[in-house]
Structure formats: structure tokens, C-alpha cells
């Protein structure tokens, strides 16, 4: 019953945000072109890195392309859902319109995380998906059931980690009011996710695994695709994703107690 209600509401979210975005045709067109150019630029940059050196950190160009594909899918998801919604939290809190969200008989985290979508992000997801299919072909990867389920699990975990990190930072707005910079820093770190973790020095590898788990976001799913991943790494990613998701939820509920609403 509850699930049906949430699905119905989400269908309405999709409908209204698509209708809102389609009001501005040129903007969508510009976004689509930007997505294509961004992917071409990223592959070009990657090819420059590999031009003189056959492999970086033990990864060949064709293998590193998998990371780029997963990054593109995740970036597409970021641009489709996280960016339009989670940056809006800051606005909701600053302007006090979070009041309307909190007074609706629906989970506030669901509402503010999924109300909007940016359709141009879909193209990025599709481009990433096609690139991934291409990588599967050139790396001669066998599409077995276990491979498909493992890759689905790890990519889902990556999405959860990414969402939780972003949501956690946005939630701090309740105390700090403006947190644009922190979100920008997070986005900059995500760019690092386009490169294999092994291509960084030991200290940076530790930093990107423990403090900002970029490693979990792209490298582990890519290792699954290449059959290089070990079970403990996959389990660790599932564990980290669960911890992040639960913590971000608890943190949101805790933060709401301090919400003072904007003055009228």
C-alpha cells in the first residue's frame, strides 16, 4: 500500500519535472551537447595519459575505459537526480520552503531527493552504458549471470555512497546555511574517480579509500567487470554503502530537530 503510494507520487514527480524542463527546449539541447562533449573530452584526456605508457597503475587503456564508462553512468545519475534535487535542499533551507516539504504526509527525504529530474542526464547515462557495452566487447568479457548480478550490486552500492555523501553535505545546511563550496569540493573529488585508483600514490590511495571513498565508487565496479575483484572488496563495498546510507538517513532525522525555518 505504502509502496504503491510512493510509486504513484514518484510517477507524478517524473511527470511534473519533465514537463517543467521541457518548457525550456534550448536549455535541454545545450545540456545534451555538453554531455556529449564532456564524454569526448574525458576519453581524449584518458588517451593522452596512455599515449606514451601502455599501462598506468597496471591498467591498460581499454580497461581504464571501463572506469570512464562507469564514471559517465554515475555522473549521468548525479546530473539526473542528485544535482537538481540535493542542491535544492540548500535553497529550501535558506528560503524556508522546506516547511512545505515537512508538512506533507510523505517521507521528507524521499521528497527532497527525488522531486526533480534533469532529463539531459539520461543521455549521459545512455552514453556511459553504450561505452560500457563497447568495453565489454573489446575486453572480451563473458556476460554470465554472476557477473551481471555482481556488477549490478557494486554499481548500486556506488550510487548509494555517492548519494549519501552528497545528501550528508546538503543536510549540514541546517546548521551552516550555505554549503555550496563543500558540494563543489565533492564534485571535484568525483572527477578523480575517472582514473584507476592504482594510478595514485599510496597516501592518496588511502585518502580516496577511507576519507572520501572514491575508490569504492568506480574502481571496485570496474574490477568486477574485468574479473579482477576479490570477494572481500565487494563485501566491503556493500558494507560501506549500507553504513553511508543508514548514517545519512539518521543524520537527516537528527538535523531536522535543529531546523528553525526561515523567518518571515
Amino acid at each position, binding site marked *: 500500500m505504502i509502496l504503491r503510494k510512493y510509486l504513484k507520487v514518484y510517477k507524478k514527480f517524473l511527470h511534473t519535472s519533465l514537463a517543467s524542463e521541457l518548457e525550456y527546449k534550448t536549455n535541454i539541447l545545450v545540456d545534451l551537447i555538453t554531455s556529449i562533449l564532456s564524454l569526448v573530452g574525458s576519453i581524449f584526456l584518458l588517451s593522452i595519459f596512455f599515449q606514451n605508457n601502455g599501462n598506468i597503475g597496471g591498467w591498460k587503456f581499454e580497461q581504464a575505459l571501463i572506469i570512464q564508462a562507469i564514471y559517465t553512468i554515475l555522473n549521468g545519475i548525479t546530473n539526473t537526480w542528485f544535482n537538481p534535487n540535493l542542491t535544492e535542499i540548500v535553497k529550501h533551507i535558506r528560503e524556508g520552503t522546506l*516547511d512545505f516539504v515537512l*508538512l506533507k*504526509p510523505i517521507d521528507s527525504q524521499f521528497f527532497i531527493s527525488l522531486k526533480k529530474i534533469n532529463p539531459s542526464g539520461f543521455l549521459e547515462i545512455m552514453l556511459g552504458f553504450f561505452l560500457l557495452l563497447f568495453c565489454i566487447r573489446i575486453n572480451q568479457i563473458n556476460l554470465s549471470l554472476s557477473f551481471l548480478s555482481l556488477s549490478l550490486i557494486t554499481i548500486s552500492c556506488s550510487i548509494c555512497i555517492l548519494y549519501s555523501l552528497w545528501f550528508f553535505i546538503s543536510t549540514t545546511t541546517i546548521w551552516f546555511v550555505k554549503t555550496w563550496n563543500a558540494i563543489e569540493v565533492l564534485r571535484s573529488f568525483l572527477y578523480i574517480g575517472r582514473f584507476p585508483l592504482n594510478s595514485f600514490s599510496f597516501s592518496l590511495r588511502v585518502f580516496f579509500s577511507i576519507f572520501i571513498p572514491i575508490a569504492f565508487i568506480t574502481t571496485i565496479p570496474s574490477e568486477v567487470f574485468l574479473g579482477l575483484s576479490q570477494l572481500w572488496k565487494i563485501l566491503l563495498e556493500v558494507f560501506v554503502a549500507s553504513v553511508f546510507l543508514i548514517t545519512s538517513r539518521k543524520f537527516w532525522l537528527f538535523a531536522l530537530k535543529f531546523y528553525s525555518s526561515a523567518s518571515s
Partner: protein
Amino acid sequence: MEQNIIDVRNLSKSFDISSKEPGLKGTIKHFFRRQTKSLKVIKDISFEIKEGEIVGFLGANGAGKTTILKMLCGLIYPSKGSISVSGYLPFRRKENFLKNITLIMGQKQQLIWDLPPIESFYLNASIYDIDKFEAKRRIKKLSEMLEVDEELFIPVRKLSLGQRMKSELLAALIHEPNILFLDEPTLGLDINAQRNLRKFLIKYNKETNATICLTSHYMKDITSLCKRVICVHEGAISYDGKLDLLLKKLSPVKEILIVCSSEEDAIKLENSGFTVKNKNKNEITIKIANNSITSSLKTILNNFDIEDLYINEPPIDEVIGKVLIKKDYEI
């Protein structure tokens, strides 16, 4: 007998407020060492509101009216005291409680900016679990009451403020709440739009017996809608009772302009023991206590040659203005 739907006991709320000295030095100091102090914005207030009542919250800017409304609808946690709204603790924001209330703020909007209001109504309907046919029926009924039609299909960004406010009301009432919290609903609206909105609220209250808690700086809103007012002064209640009683208390006399048939009559009236405010040739303005208006006028008409007379009520804004700056009005 109607029962209490809102019960507030010894409610207090404090906020941590940071202050900053002016100038660059103050800014740098504020950046490195922010000085905050706890400010008690609501001080130990208690009141109850009966089902179907329309209550106006009066007070100067920053008196705490909006904070009270926000605590009543569960947006802000109280620091002390207890609140019961429809039998619920508001800040727990239980689903059934939220389905019973609505908050409308004149200066904030929930409608989707780029889409016609009708899209926001159906979105709200799905959030409140109202099926499509029922939503359609309610939209039709409310749009008739609010006298809106074509504007429901025009993007919100292209609507006038008055049309937007009507649509906001419709969006906020689609779930047929029985408690309405209205924070300055007529803010920025022109006279006709204000009147229409008030007309709608009276009609809605009559038809649904909904309880309405209202804050407004437009006295016309208060006088046309509220029989009872709660005056808030610096976070404390300075008066809670009937509006007409407050007005009588605040303005115990009426001014009467009397046009005498001759200047001699005016001089005779001036010396007859009435309190004279001013006199100009054959026109004289006297002050008479509200409780002796009839007998005094009878005396004047019987003993003096009068051409015309006007009874002047003091402007309501002026009268209520006194409440906003004083601490206690015991009736």
C-alpha cells in the same frame, strides 16, 4: 459544546542568534569568533482554541506570531511546554496529523513555478493519497469557491500575485484540512483580491467548520474574520479575548462632530459640560463615552438647534497599534 482542538500550555521557545558588529573589523571578528546568544522568542504562553474558531494573532514584527504558528503545525520544536493539536503532538508530524492541517504563507509558495497550478494540485493529491476522480471533484469545488478557472491552466510564473495566492490556497486545501494556519495570507494583494480571499475564508469556515489561526498586519483581515484575537508582545501574550471587547477597552470614547445652526448654539454647547475636542465657528467636536452615547445624543438633540451630526469611529489601525506596543491588556 465545541471542544478544544488546540491546547497550548506554558510554551517557550529559544533560538541561538549570532550578532555582528558593523565594518570590516566586525566582519573578521564575526568570521573567526561568532558570538551567539540565546534569545527567548516565546515566553511561557498558554491558550486553547475551539473547533471551528477563527483566531487572529496580532503583534508587531518579530513579536513571535509566526514562531507560534510554526510550533503549532510542527515545524519547530518547542524548548519548553506542551502543545496538542487535534490530539497530536505536532512536532512528531504523524501522517494523520499532517492530513488534518495546512500552512499557507503569504510570502512563500509551494506551486511549481514553470507549470500551471493544476499540475501542482494533482501532485499534492497523489501525496495526500487522493484518487484522480476525487481530486478532480475537490479542485472543481474549490475553484468555484475561489472563483478561479482559466488561470489554473496558465504557468504560475505568468499569473498575477492575486491569482497565485488563490492557487496557493487551492493547493493547500485539496486535502480538506480541518485546521488552517495562515501566515499573512493577504500580503501584497490588492484591495479586491484581499476582499475575495477573506470572503472565501469565511465561506470555507462556515461550510467545513474548519479552525483557522491567522496572522496579518492588515487590520481588515482581522476585523472581518476573527471574533477572537491573541495579542503577542515580545513573545508573551498581552491579550487573549474577544476583538470587540478589546476595541471597546482601547477606544472607550467616540468623537462626534456636531454642526449647530448658529455659532451661539455652538458656544452654548461648548459650555454645557461635554468634553470638547475642538470648535470652529458653528462646528464643534465632542468626545462621549461609548456607554452614554444614546443618552448624551438625546440631550443634545432636545436642547440644542442642530443641523447635522457625524459619529466618528477612531481608525482601527490606530487603536490596534496601541496593543502592539503595550505589554498587558487585562479585560
